[in-house]
C-alpha cells in the first residue's frame, strides 16, 4: 500500500499535470471510458484533449494508483477513481481554490 509521501510524488506528472487533474475531476462524477472523458472535459473546459495526451495522463494515473479499471468481465472497462485518487483530487482542488481566492482578492485590490 502506498504511503502518503509516495502518493505525493506519484502526482509529479510534468506536462501531463493538467490533463491528469481534468481526468480525476471527470471521474469524480462517475466511472467513464476514454471517449466519455474527452467529451466531459471538452464540456468543462471548452478544449478537447487528444487521445495521446489523454492516455499519457491515464497511464500515469493508473501507474500511480489514482485510477483503476472497473473490475468486470468486459475487455474494455471504464475507469474510476481509487480512494487514493479521491484524496489527491480533494487536496489538489483545495490548493487551487486557495490560490484562486488569493488571486481574485489581489486583482480586486489592484
Amino acid at each position, binding site marked *: 500500500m502506498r504511503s502518503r509521501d509516495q502518493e505525493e510524488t506519484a502526482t509529479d506528472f510534468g506536462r501531463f499535470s493538467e490533463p491528469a487533474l481534468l481526468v480525476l475531476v471527470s471521474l469524480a462524477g462517475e466511472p467513464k471510458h*476514454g*471517449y466519455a472523458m474527452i467529451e466531459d472535459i471538452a464540456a468543462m473546459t471548452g478544449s478537447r484533449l*487528444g*487521445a*495521446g*495526451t489523454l*492516455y499519457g495522463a491515464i*497511464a500515469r494515473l493508473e501507474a500511480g494508483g489514482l485510477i*483503476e479499471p472497473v473490475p468486470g468481465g468486459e475487455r*474494455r472497462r471504464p475507469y474510476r477513481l481509487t480512494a487514493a485518487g479521491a484524496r489527491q483530487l480533494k487536496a489538489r482542488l483545495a490548493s487551487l481554490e486557495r490560490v484562486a481566492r488569493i488571486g481574485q482578492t489581489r486583482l480586486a485590490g489592484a
Partner: protein
Amino acid sequence: MSFLLRLYPKAWRERYGEEVAELLARERLTPRLALDLLTGALDAQLHPQLAARTAHKATGASGGATVIGGFSFRCASAPGMTRREALNSALLVAGSALVLALGWVWLKRTYGPTPWVDALGQVALFGPTLAYAVLLGAKNRTSTARALLFAGLLVLLLLINYAAARWL
C-alpha cells in the same frame, strides 16, 4: 489512424491499444491529432515502465510473478530488458551524448559557429535520448540493425537542425 499506434511500445499497445483504437475510430484525423499521437508515442517510448506497471496490474499476475515483475522493473529500463541491457543502453546514450558534445566543442573552436556546427550542438543535447527512445521499439532487431537505426536517426536530426538553422 491505427498506423500511428504502431509507434507506441508493444506493452503500451497491449494495455491501451484497443481502447485508443476504438476512441480514434470516432475521431477525424487532423494534423493536431496526429501530432498529439506522435508526441504521446514518444512519451510512451521514453517511459515504458508506465505501461509495464499497468499491464502487470491488468493481467492480475500471481504473487510469485508479481515479485519477479517488480524486481525486473526496478533493475531494467524497459519491460523485458535485463540489467545488463539496461546498463548498456544507458552507456550508449550517455557515451554518444558525450562524444557528440566534445565533437561540437572542438569543431566550434576550430571552425567557429557555422550552421553545421550549431546543428551538431543541438543534436548532442537531445539526439541520443530521442534516438534511444525509438531504439526501445526495435529491441528484437540485430545489433547491426539497431546501430544503423541509432546512427541514422542522429544523422536525420542533424540534417533537420541544419535545415532549420539555414532556411527558417
